[in-house]
């Protein structure tokens, strides 16, 4: 595989993660007309949830070693989704519900407040030092079917209380890529299925097009909004799991920059559109990775500003994004 191809694959994976965060952001904006600045913190919550689940002594409860590896990964993905969704629904209930109807600036400020609050809680509960995804503990490497995905870890042996001789194994880079790819594909197709093919998804789309008309045909907006928050938070949480697996660096402030980029991805894709959010994320991820790989080193400091430049260009030329309807003009 040539360098270019490797970079393209990297960019697509990064872009899918941005897209995954952006879908939730975009859906929430569509339904609740709310710029959810705390969305990056749902991503952070998901990463921590996944990390703590992966640190559980799963080998104790499972028979085969192969089951441990896949069980750990699957469980921590689920835990990431669950913690993202729970935090998201809680924030909606405790912070947004009262303000949403009143003033958009107040709603936005509440979102910023919620984001700061979640970060502060993160600092107090998880401390500021960045963590990486833990090694997988397995009793017997030979029993793992896809052993080429795992390699012996340089880290300490996993669990002090281990009775059987345990081996600490880490996912190899290609294993990480494969897991990332599978989870991304599942999550994105799940999001599409949910929004486009289920009744709840239909209700969400109806409320986001016109709340009054949706109400008049018997759709209650509030449950649709709660569902949107739950799904959006779960997608952000899965992105958090993948991020911690692939890039590490899990700490309370990790949500801010990916959050802003997902925000940009949602806007350039067209706010309110799921396809648009994924497309926007892919565009951003590719652009970022390729510019980082091919432009001279001095430009790399501008990596995070690139997204915002793209945003500014889109706002001036095509404010409603690639696939969006005109939204957010009149209050």
């Amino acid at each position: 595989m040539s360098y270019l191809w490797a970079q393209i694959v990297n960019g697509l994976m990064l872009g899918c993660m941005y897209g995954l965060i952006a879908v939730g952001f975009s859906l929430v904006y569509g339904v609740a007309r709310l710029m959810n600045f705390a969305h990056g913190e749902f991503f952070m919550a998901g990463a921590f949830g996944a990390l703590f689940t992966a640190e559980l002594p799963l080998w104790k409860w499972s028979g085969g070693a192969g089951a441990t590896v896949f069980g750990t990964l699957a469980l921590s993905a689920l835990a990431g989704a669950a913690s993202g969704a729970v935090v998201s629904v809680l924030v909606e209930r405790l912070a947004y519900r009262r303000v949403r109807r009143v003033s958009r600036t107040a709603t936005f400020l509440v979102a910023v407040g919620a984001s700061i609050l979640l970060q502060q809680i993160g600092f107090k509960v998880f401390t500021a030092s960045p963590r990486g995804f833990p090694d997988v503990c397995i009793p017997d490497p030979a029993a793992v079917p896809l052993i080429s995905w795992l390699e012996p870890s340089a880290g300490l042996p996993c669990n002090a209380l281990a009775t059987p001789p345990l081996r600490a194994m880490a996912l190899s880079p290609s294993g990480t890529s494969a897991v990332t790819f599978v989870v991304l594909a599942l999550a994105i197709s799940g999001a599409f299925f949910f929004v486009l093919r289920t009744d709840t998804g239909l209700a969400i789309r109806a409320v986001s097009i016109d709340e009054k008309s949706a109400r008049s045909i018997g759709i209650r907006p509030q449950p649709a909004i709660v569902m949107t928050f739950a799904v959006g938070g779960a997608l952000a949480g899965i992105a958090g799991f993948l991020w911690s697996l692939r890039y590490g660096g899990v700490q309370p402030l990790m949500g801010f920059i990916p959050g802003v980029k997902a925000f940009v991805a949602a806007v350039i894709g067209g706010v309110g559109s799921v396809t648009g959010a994924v497309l926007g994320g892919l565009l951003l991820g590719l652009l970022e990775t390729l510019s980082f790989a091919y432009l001279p080193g001095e430009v790399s400091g501008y990596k995070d500003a690139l997204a915002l430049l793209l945003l500014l260009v889109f706002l001036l030329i095509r404010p409603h994004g690639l696939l969006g309807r005109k939204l957010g003009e009149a209050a």
Partner: protein
Amino acid sequence: MELIVDYTLTHLVYLSILVIFAAGVVVLYGLAGVFTLGHQGFMAIGAYLAAGIAGLMPSGGSFGLAAALLVASVIVGVGGAAAGGLLLTGPSLRLGGDYMALATLAFSEILLAVIRNTEALGGMRGIDVVSLLPRASGSARLAILGTYALASVAMAAGSVLAVRRLGCSRLGIALRALRDDELAARSMGLDNRQARLISFSLGAGLCGLAGCLYAHFSGHVSPRDFGFVQGALVLLYVVLGGSTAVGTACAIAVVYILDEGLKLRCFGLLTGVLGDTLVNWKDAILAGLLIALLAWRPYGLLPADRMRSKR
């Protein structure tokens, strides 16, 4: 005793700078109704321009030269920030609501990225500002600090009153009409483009003034001083203050004193476990308190009469 006076005066200056900054945001958000998230960028323009002008001062230059440079730095800083405001508004006139907010945010974040990556501007570390006025030190420290505090309070009061006056002027009435119902106001013959350009340059200019004063007083500017959170906090004060200049000044004073008071354990009154918890969780408590405040009083503690925007 001396320490307490020193502390109070220093914080009085920072409080006044914050009030001037917020007065600029009142013009942008309160009067013109532009949902801005980039005002900290205008402040940064003012601060860095002031720092640059102060850097022209030769060592051992006369007092007159220093005073001239000081005046020049304020003029250039305010002018530069106002020009930045025009530069941003010009192309984005047709953007409304949330999109304008995003454009202002992108503007200030790109500006900060340029500053972070430019070695001549000090990069991440920031730059020291050459002192144009006698730095407060030695025996005359309190007298000098007192003068600064007096001057900055006067400037803050001046900007608050000016913004208040502006609200009652022809321009202010036009701006409010455009804010509350753009279509109706335009059909009465009001020029929304002109009004937006003027209000943006005025508001950005005030933010620039705050930046200048900050650079001269603190003696050091860095990109961290103008982050997104600082900007959002000021917008929060403006909303809590009911989007009027006087209300905002009051809101800032209350929150600032609360924040500093908690840092000092309520001036020594809070001790023991309760005190420790309060101090450790200060930021989380303040954020939660502000969310609750916004939830109960979304138009500010004492809202000005304002047409409630419907969804």
